[in-house]
């Protein structure tokens, strides 16, 4: 297969450096850092509260990073209901790969706000997650494409597409955490 860019959209350059865009950048960064911390603390109820009721969480397969959940097989395609079910499962004692919970550290960086449209904001970020459990360690590396919306004055996530850079999950066996 010829090498083609993952997206035909040109790389967004970020917003001009105005006072507003600096504030927005700060806000987006703080939200993504907070998400990372809540996930690492396994404070999943608080994590859900960062998302709007119409939110989605998608992770494409490693061999089809551009995969569309409507017609391609992906790893995760959660609407808000299934995000809640995923959290309930992880909080119970029968998600066996996460009982007891693994220790994780989510690192989010290279955050760029790529578009602003009314109340909605798009951003992209690099992410690396270390996971430790049962004598094993593995890293998940990839990119977030997020959509955010201002609700009652505060930014909330309304969509996250988390794209893995790995060729396979051979080092991991599963994606049992929230990436």
């Amino acid at each position, binding site marked *: 297969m010829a090498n083609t860019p993952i997206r035909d959209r040109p790389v967004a350059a970020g917003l001009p450096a105005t006072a507003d865009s600096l504030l927005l950048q700060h806000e987006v960064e703080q939200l993504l850092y907070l998400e990372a911390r809540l996930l690492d603390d396994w404070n999943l109820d608080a994590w859900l509260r960062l998302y709007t009721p119409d939110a989605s969480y998608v992770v494409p397969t490693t061999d089809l990073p551009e995969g569309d959940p409507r017609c*391609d097989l992906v*790893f995760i395609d959660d609407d808000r209901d299934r995000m809640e079910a995923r959290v309930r499962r992880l909080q119970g004692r029968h998600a066996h790969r996460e009982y007891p919970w693994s220790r994780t550290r989510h690192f989010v960086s290279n955050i760029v706000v790529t578009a602003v449209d009314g109340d909605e904001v798009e951003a992209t970020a690099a992410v690396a997650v270390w996971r430790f459990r049962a004598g094993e360690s593995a890293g998940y590396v990839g990119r977030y494409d997020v959509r955010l919306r201002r609700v009652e004055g505060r930014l909330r996530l309304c969509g996250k597409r988390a794209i893995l850079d790995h060729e396979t999950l051979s080092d991991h066996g599963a994606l049992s955490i929230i990436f």
Partner: protein
Amino acid sequence: MDVDKLVYDHPELGKFKVHRSAVGAPEIYELERRRIFDRCWLYLGHESEVPEPGDYARRVVAERPLFFVRNRDRQLRVFHNACPHRGALVCRSDRGNAQVFKCFYHSWTFDLSGALVGVPDIDGYGTGFHREEMGLRSPRFDSYRGFVFVCFDHGTEPLRDYLAGATEYLDLVADQDAGGMRVIPGSNRYSIKANWKLLAENSIDGYHLPALHRSFVEYLAGIAKAAGRSVTTDGNRRGVGRSLGNGHGVMENDAVYGRPIALWHPSYGEEARAEIRTTRDRLIARHGLDKALRICEKSRNLLIFPNLIIADIMALTIRVFQPTGPAGMEVTAWELAPAGEVGIRLRRRLDSFLTFLGPGGFATPDDVEVLESCQQGCRSGGVEWMDLSRGLHREPRGTDELQMRSFWRRWQSLLAGTPHVEQYERGLPPDAVPKAIPPPAPTAPAD
């Protein structure tokens, strides 16, 4: 431990055990490579992965790099992925479309049928060089209803004979759409740090669903309850287990979840009902009531010896696992769908897959965890045998272990080079029961 004594097979005593060295000892793994993976028909891929001339896909089967191609005459070709010049990989990406394959070392070029069509500076070769002898090499390959297999032994029986009773179940998959079936883009590729045979067993084990996958069962029950409906969860108890010959086996159960082909579940929403009824009517008109209802309402986990699973459950999954050592395997899984299925029906199928299956599903991670756990438990000692005697005393149900025993019997006979005996337990078709071969004399297992 003698290699012919790894399976303790005595239905008349109510016992069936497998010695744990079978799933961990390096010398057993080396024997398996030669006596099982070098001799059996092994799943390569699905014809729908390469629909057009020039389409190709690359695979590793039993540690051998291979690729398959649709040539200009629309025939399928399978090649060893090794240049006949000095052995470099000729196909170097997982899938795509090519006019020719050009080796990147010295630029020898092969057409879609494998013929060597280009050699730079060919004057450098003398009379002993025959271009027609230097094409890409093919292993034996054949396909059954779109499922493509390879075999590295010319003495093995033809594919059709090898598949034995499994063809009936492959037909139940291939007959789900008059327009054929296709593999959906996107695959699951992950590893399990466990012996490959533990996944073969696990994939046709109906006993563990309510226990290991309790969180999945509760998830579905929660959706049904929210929709004001109760759902049955004990379908497995009304199923059957079958041996299909040559080590293949199946469990066929009443589905306790929705089936995207045509069994409604509250999680699909009311709006799906009418259209599912239409699909059912179409299948009934085409196949008659019995077969159509089997396609719609029964779930089937089919094992084709040694390492292919077709799980026709809340999704239709092809799963193949390649051993990477005595305690490791690489798993690849795909979703299969009627070729003409698009829009909301396809979306529902994909969604149904994700409720249970895959690295991010609500059940597959539990299977990965438990198989790795079994592998670790093996090292503890004390427990020398694995017990697979469930259901020996009765007509085999889907939650029993006949289908696993038939896998192990075949495995034992291939490994030890002893005759394969379809066992004399209940539930086998009468013509599969040997007349003259008595059961081997029992030797007491160690525990």
